[in-house]
């Protein structure tokens, strides 16, 4: 840890903190990215040096990585200080900053962008890597999803070594990528988006599904028996020995119970008993604004971030049955410029309730809803959306920059 850092790395760390602080003070964000960039210019091996001697877990996947990282951090804090990139800066610059800011932390829980998994494996020598799911996301600038799974598989084959992989047994792409590793802990974390895994990632034949079980009709790739799973009834996780751990999460939805199952599996590899970890997950009320509840003019808004088709379907699964829904869609660079994916989302479950659409690409949403015969009104921004609904609870679903715009309206609520 930082007490043993070479002088150059110490200097780089000091500069990193200064740059991050300056960036924050001038209102340019939390400074994670610029700080990390400055530090890595001065000492290109800074991430590796800062990670050395710590017990690291990397968490990656298309959806749920920020929340799972938050849960994991809460669980690991039972046994020590944890460095984490809680601001969602999930590339090496952000990881470097997270470690530099927590010099005394023995543990590190790092959310990792899918495309940087290999680099992080090599630099941070993690004890555990958690792989949540893979589905289509930002297709105009990212890799198609099977190609990404292939890249993971290759990376893990080369670099996983003694790392234990915690992987989702319900996602065929994840199973295929993780099955090259020697040590895998399987979690039945669910998959409500199956459109990207109709065919076998290994051989291209059809996957047969029998309830939760799936198998390839040709090469035999199949769902491994999970050690951890979300209980079929109630809100609990079932551990490897069959014991049941009640969750009582504040975060909504089955998908967050699955994230909790993954976090408990990770924590247990670090020596934290699930019975000790579970109550800590229940204390998490929101994650970088996600699931936050804010109030304005008698309307209680719950903010849900959903970046891709799987995320939108998950959020429709979470929302209460009756309140009005505000949908906000942008297509700026980090969102992806292509909005075609909204046709992969089924909006028919929203029919019959009040739906308000906004965001840069609200017209795209209006046309989409018309096709699904869902009535809607179109407004300019979140303020107008609030004015357009009656006082009471309101569910807000937005993609990445649309979500950040709404958070900004509420003082960057966490």
């Amino acid at each position, binding site marked *: 840890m930082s007490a043993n850092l070479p002088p150059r790395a110490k200097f780089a760390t000091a500069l990193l903190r200064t740059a991050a602080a300056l960036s924050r003070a001038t209102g340019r964000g939390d400074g994670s990215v610029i700080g990390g960039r400055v530090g890595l210019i001065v000492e290109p091996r800074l991430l590796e040096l800062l990670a050395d001697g710590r017990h690291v877990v990397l968490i990656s996947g298309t959806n749920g990585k920020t929340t799972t990282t938050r849960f994991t951090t809460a669980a690991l804090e039972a046994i020590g200080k944890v460095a984490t990139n809680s601001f969602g800066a999930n590339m090496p610059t952000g990881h470097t900053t997270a470690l530099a800011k927590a010099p005394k932390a023995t543990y590190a829980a790092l959310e990792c962008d899918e495309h940087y998994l290999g680099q992080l494996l090599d630099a941070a020598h993690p004890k555990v890597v958690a792989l949540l799911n893979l589905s*289509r996301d930002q*297709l*105009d*600038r990212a890799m*198609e999803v*099977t*190609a990404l799974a292939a890249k993971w598989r290759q990376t893990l084959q080369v670099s996983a070594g003694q790392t234990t992989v915690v992987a989702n047994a319900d996602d065929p792409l994840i199973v295929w990528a993780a099955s090259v590793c020697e040590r895998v802990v399987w979690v039945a974390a669910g998959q409500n988006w199956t*459109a990207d895994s*109709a*065919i076998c990632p290994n051989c*291209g034949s*059809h996957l047969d599904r029998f309830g939760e079980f799936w198998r390839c009709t040709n090469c035999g790739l199949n769902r491994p028996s999970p050690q951890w799973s979300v209980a079929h009834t109630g809100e609990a996780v079932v551990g490897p020995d069959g014991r049941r751990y009640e969750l009582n999460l504040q975060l909504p939805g089955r998908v967050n119970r699955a994230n909790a199952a993954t976090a408990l599996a990770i924590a247990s590899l670090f020596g934290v008993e699930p019975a000790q970890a579970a109550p800590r997950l229940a204390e998490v009320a929101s994650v970088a604004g996600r699931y936050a509840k804010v109030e304005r003019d008698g309307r209680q808004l719950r903010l849900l971030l959903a970046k891709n088709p799987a995320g939108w379907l998950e959020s429709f699964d979470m929302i209460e049955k009756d309140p009005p829904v505000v949908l906000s869609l942008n297509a700026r660079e980090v969102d992806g*410029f*292509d*909005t*075609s*994916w*909204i*046709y*992969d989302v089924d909006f028919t479950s929203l029919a019959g309730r009040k739906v308000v659409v906004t965001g840069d690409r609200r*017209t*795209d949403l*209006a*046309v*989409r809803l*018309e*096709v*699904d*015969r869902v009535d809607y009104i179109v407004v300019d921004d979140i303020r107008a959306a609030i004015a357009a609904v009656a006082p009471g609870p309101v569910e807000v679903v937005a993609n990445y920059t649309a979500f950040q715009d709404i958070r900004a309206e509420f003082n960057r609520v966490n």
Partner: protein
Amino acid sequence: MSISTLRIVWLYPDLLSTYGDRGNLLVLAHRARARGIDVEPMQIRSDQHVPHGADLYLIGGGEDGPQAVAAERLLDDGALGKAAEAGKPVLAICAGYQLLGESFYANGRCYPGLGILDLRSDRGESRAVGEIAGEGAPQLGIGPITGFENHGGRTHLGEAVQPLARVSAGIGNDGATEGAWAGHVIGTYMHGPALARNPRLADLLLSWAVGVAPASLPPIDDTWPERLRSERFAALTPE
């Protein structure tokens, strides 16, 4: 109308459905129902037979591996070629468009296509990603086209097909033309919900399927699709 129930076949969504391809099926069904035409959407997986005698066939886009598998299975099956020969309307997107041609490239090699359209596809030097727009073929009466493209292929048209549009923004086939048509078969690089952004193209396919002139379809309220079109054309103009 000459048909009571319109049977729309969406081919191989298990292999070719990458960029909201379902959107075209949804838009066609929506616009048919708005005219009082019943619709029976049929999703045909690549391990099922392609139905003979449906009224309209759709095929979407996808990655190289699934594209090659889809072409092989469609060639074995044979029904899509016969439907096209019989004058049934076909809309093919991106990878699906390429495989209707004589040949296409995937996984670094050349594959035989279905030969339904007189065209050949190979690889471009760079990937074409972004908004695409242009003037639709005058014979089709579809007006200006607007869409989003994301493909590495380039397509060379033979003499037996016409371009779907002349490109004014984006790449399409080769930077000059976009898509192709012959008879009632249309191929395009405009992926995903191309028909949401081009309602006249959707109505053209419907009119072919139903067997009437496009102008005889009752008008429907296209306020929001027209606003979307204006927005996308405006977004092409540099600020």
